[in-house]
C-alpha cells in the first residue's frame, strides 16, 4: 500500500503542490487527471524523490519517509520499491534493449547475470519485443522505446510503477500498442499510478481516479463517478473540454 500525506512542494515562490493526500491499495490502478501545470508530474517525481517535497510523508509498504528529513539511504530504499516510466522514455542510449532491462536487476538488485537475462527475456516477450533484444534505442520506434521503458520498470518487480504521460510523446498510430501493454500488466495486479490525457484508456484501466488542479486534489472517486457524474465544477469543466463527445449526467 502507498500513502502520501500532506505533500507540499514549491519552486521558488510558486507553490506547485499544496498538501496532497493519496492512498493507493495494493494492486490498484490510480489515474491522475488534471490540466497542464496542475502539478501531476511534480507529484510523481516527489514519490521517488527525483524532486524532494518540502514537507509531507510517503509510505510505501513497510517503509515510511518524512520528505523534509529523508536521508540518502531512505531515498535509495524508497526508489528501490518504485519504478518510473517517463514521458520521453529516458532509455540508456549506449545499452541494448536487453541490457536496458537487465541493468537494474544486475546493478541494483545484484542478480547473477544469467538469471537477470532470463527474467529480462521473459519480460521483453511480454511487451512484444523478443525480436529487438539486441537493438539500441536509437534503432527503435517511439512505441518500441516506450515498451522497453515499461519492461525496464517491470523487471524490478516494484511495489508501484509510476507512469508520467507514457504516450504523449508518441505519434498517434503508436499510442495503441503502448496502451495495450500497460493494460495487460495492469490486469496482472501490479500497482500503478498513471498520469495520462488518454481519457478512454484512463476510464478503462483505472480503479480509482484523482482529479488535480492548481496543486490540490479537487475530486477523487471511482472512474464511473468521476467520468460520468463529477461533483465539482472544475472537474466538469475539465472533462467537458477534453472529452466533449462523452455524455455526462451533469
Amino acid at each position, binding site marked *: 500500500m502507498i500513502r502520501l500525506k500532506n505533500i507540499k512542494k514549491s519552486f521558488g515562490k510558486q507553490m506547485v503542490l499544496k498538501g496532497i493526500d493519496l492512498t493507493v491499495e495494493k494492486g490498484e490502478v490510480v489515474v491522475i487527471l488534471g490540466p497542464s501545470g496542475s502539478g501531476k508530474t511534480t507529484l510523481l517525481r516527489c514519490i521517488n524523490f527525483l524532486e524532494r517535497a518540502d514537507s509531507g510523508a510517503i509510505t510505501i509498504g513497510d517503509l515510511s519517509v518524512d520528505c523534509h528529513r529523508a536521508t540518502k539511504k531512505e531515498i535509495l530504499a524508497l526508489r528501490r520499491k518504485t519504478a518510473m516510466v517517463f514521458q520521453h522514455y529516458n532509455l540508456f542510449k549506449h545499452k541494448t534493449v536487453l541490457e536496458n532491462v537487465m*541493468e537494474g536487476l544486475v546493478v541494483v538488485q545484484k542478480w547473477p547475470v544469467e538469471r537477470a537475462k532470463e527474467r529480462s527475456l521473459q519480460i521483453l516477450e511480454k511487451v512484444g519485443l523478443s525480436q529487438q533484444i539486441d537493438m539500441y534505442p536509437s*534503432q527503435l520506434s517511439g512505441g518500441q522505446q516506450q515498451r522497453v521503458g515499461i519492461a525496464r520498470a517491470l523487471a524490478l518487480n516494484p511495489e508501484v510503477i509510476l507512469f508520467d504521460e507514457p504516450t504523449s510523446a508518441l505519434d498517434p498510430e503508436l499510442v495503441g500498442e503502448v496502451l495495450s501493454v500497460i493494460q495487460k500488466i495492469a490486469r496482472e495486479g501490479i500497482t500503478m499510478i498513471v498520469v495520462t490525457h488518454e481519457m478512454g484508456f484512463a476510464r478503462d484501466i483505472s480503479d480509482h481516479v484523482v482529479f488535480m488542479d492548481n496543486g490540490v486534489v479537487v475530486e477523487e472517486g471511482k472512474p464511473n463517478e468521476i467520468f460520468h457524474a463529477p461533483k465539482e465544477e472544475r472537474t466538469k469543466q475539465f472533462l467537458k473540454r477534453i472529452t466533449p463527445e462523452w455524455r455526462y449526467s451533469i
Partner: protein
Amino acid sequence: MGKSFDLNLVFDFLPKLLSYLHITLLILVGAVLIGLLVGFLAALPRIYNIPVLRTLSAIYVSFIRGTPILIQLFLVYYGLPELLKTIQIDVTHMSSLVFVIITYGFSIGALFSEIIRAAVSAVDRGQTEAAYAIGMTPIAAFVRIVLPQALTIAFPNFANLVISYLKDTSLAFYIGVMDMTGRGQTLGTATNHFLEVYISLAIIYYAVCILLEKCFSLLETRMLRYERQFPVSQ
C-alpha cells in the same frame, strides 16, 4: 645556410631519427595518461559545482589555455626544482624527460577537463533520472550511464588533442631532451644538412599523425555503434 641539398640524405636520416621515435611516443603516452587523470580531477569540481575547488580548476584551465606550451615547459623546468627546494627535495639530477612529461600532462589535463565537462553535460539529464529511478546510487549512475556516453562524445576532440600534442612534443629538445627532434638537431649540426633533417622529421611526424588518425577513427566507429545505424521502418 647548410651544404647543397642531397635527397639521399633524407633517406639516410630516416632510420637514425626513427630510432628516437620511442622517446617521442613515451612523452606523448606518459603525458596523455597524466592528462587523463588530472583532467578528470579538474573536471569533477566543475561538473558537481564544488565551491573553491571549482574556482581553482577554472583558474588552472584558463592559465594553461592562455600561455604557450613552451613557456609552461620552461616554467616547470626552472620553477619546479626551486619550488621543491623550499621543501627540501632535490631534483637537480632528475631527467629532463620527467619535466617534459609532467608539463605536457598538466597541459593536456586542462584541455581534457574542458572536453570532459562539455561531454558530461551533453548526456541528457533524463538518463541520470532513469538511473536514479531504478535505484542506482549517484556514483553508479555516473560511472555506468553518464561516463561511457560522455567518453564517446568526448572522443573526437580528445583524439585531436592527442595528435596536436604529438606535434608539440617536438619542443622538448629546448630543455635538452633527446627525442626525435633533439636527435635531428644534433644530426643537423654534425652534417650541416639541416633541410634534409627537417624533411625527414616532417615525414615521420606526418606518418605517425596519419596512423594515429586512422586508429582513432576506427575506435570512434566502434564506440558509436549505438547511434542510429539505419532508419526505423515500422
